[in-house]
């Protein structure tokens, strides 16, 4: 609590200096404080009966359910199945989105051939496609993977295209003067120059990927996290439903964290002094 009083005692004392003076040390506990407080409040409300078990079970109850399902293998199996759908769908969508964007951005012909249909398809509502995908691909794994792939492709396509087209023309001239050739220009100037924007697209598309997966798994599934949640609903197991949601959230956070890690590694040059 001494930190709190220190903070409030000098609210305007050069705030910019503080993180630099103590990097990281102050921030982490502070950011963790409010979620922890909420968790405690939640547990208290459940324990005292203010919050009905049927509406929202206590954190402790959810934790024990998690342990139970983990031990029986139900949870790990469900995560495995969902993760597999997400990874395959993401890989297919990312390859298509980035590949088509490179094609469209690097040549006029490619742009005319690829961009108009992509812009048209982009206008289609992602979840409106579900009935069509079920008609086309049945109710197995394919429609779910296809939905994820479709959702992933567009943010990556748009951002990669914009990233490549946004590469500084002056740097392209440097490549010309240094006689890099077309392949060298793409390798040394164009693709690295587009990377920051591609990474933005990557984060956007990961968000879409999880969303598409969750929706697809809700519609019909005989395994996976969505199935686990739906099945639990039938038996009024709110704790399992909440657990499923928490797992989705955790998976989303983990993948976002991975991209941020990649970002930090790939974009060290932006940090300037840090990389020197």
């Amino acid at each position, binding site marked *: 609590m001494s930190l709190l009083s220190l903070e409030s005692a000098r609210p305007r004392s050069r705030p910019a200096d503080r993180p630099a003076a103590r990097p990281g040390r102050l921030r982490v506990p502070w950011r963790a404080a409010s979620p922890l407080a909420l968790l405690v409040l939640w547990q208290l409300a459940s324990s005292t009966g203010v919050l009905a078990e049927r509406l929202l079970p206590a954190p402790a109850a959810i934790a024990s359910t998690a342990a139970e399902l983990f031990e029986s293998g139900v949870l790990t199996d469900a995560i495995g199945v969902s993760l597999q759908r997400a990874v395959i769908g993401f890989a297919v969508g990312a390859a298509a989105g980035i590949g088509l964007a490179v094609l469209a951005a690097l040549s006029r012909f490619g742009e005319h051939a690829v961009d108009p249909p992509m812009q048209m398809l982009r206008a289609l509502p992602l979840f409106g496609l579900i009935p069509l995908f079920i008609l086309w691909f049945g109710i197995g794994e394919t429609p779910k993977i296809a939905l994820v792939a479709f959702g992933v492709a567009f943010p990556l396509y748009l951002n990669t295209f914009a990233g490549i087209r946004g590469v500084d023309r*002056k740097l392209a001239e440097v490549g010309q003067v*240094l*006689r*890099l050739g077309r392949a060298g220009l793409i390798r040394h100037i164009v693709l690295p120059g587009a990377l920051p924007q591609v990474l933005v697209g990557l984060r956007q598309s990961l968000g879409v990927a999880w969303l598409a997966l969750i929706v697809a798994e809700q519609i019909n599934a005989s395994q996976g996290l969505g199935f686990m949640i739906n099945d639990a609903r039938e038996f009024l197991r709110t704790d399992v439903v909440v657990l499923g949601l928490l797992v989705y959230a955790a998976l989303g956070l983990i993948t976002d964290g991975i991209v941020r890690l990649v970002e930090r590694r790939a974009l060290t*040059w932006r940090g*300037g002094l840090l*990389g*020197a």
Partner: protein
Amino acid sequence: MARRTAGSVTEAPAVRVGSLTKRFGERTVLDGLDLRIERGEFVALLGRSGSGKSTLLRALAGLDRDVDGTLDIDGTVAVAFQEPRLVPWRRVRANVALGLDVPDPRAAARDALAEVGLTERGDAWPLSLSGGEAQRASLARALVREPGLLLLDEPFSALDALTRITMHRLVLDLWERHRPAVLLVTHDVDEALLLADRVLVLDEGRIVHETRVTEPRPRHRDHRELSRLRSVLLAELGVTPEGTT
């Protein structure tokens, strides 16, 4: 200090430009321009904005191929731009080695950085360099290619006055060691007089004036002959002296 040799004049020149013409729609930017630069000669090109300086430079650099006339350049062309244009996602040494076609590009880059006094900054990211350091890295990247023609596009104009003086010395030093032909495009009459063997004035797409500077280097801007040439050049550029000489 007089290092110019008569022999070089008889060889094929570094640059021979004949009737170079460039039009943007109705506007003629280069109007049948003729230019000859001897091997190892240091030429400064002065001109007001819009006189066609950058267009000429872009044509010589091969960045604009949509020009009429003849363009003969002996050896490779290297450019140091006004902004250093280092590739920000390649470390300084990799920038110097970029596209370098020699057996050991890294070693060549290291030597080139040593020459411009940037040995310790080879592993730095370009964005962490100061303006002067970045411009020196840019010079190293140009010179490591042992160019027959070095194009300098106002490379010192964004630097502070003190850094600019250091850079002038560095450029002369590097030029005397490597002896490329140099075309320095600049707004700065003093800079042209301090560095060049020959100063050209470009106006409306033609070279309208030419001055030889025979003063031995290093030159001082207060030297009487340079002062006289300065007045002449300023008059050519349309700047009239105000009262004092």
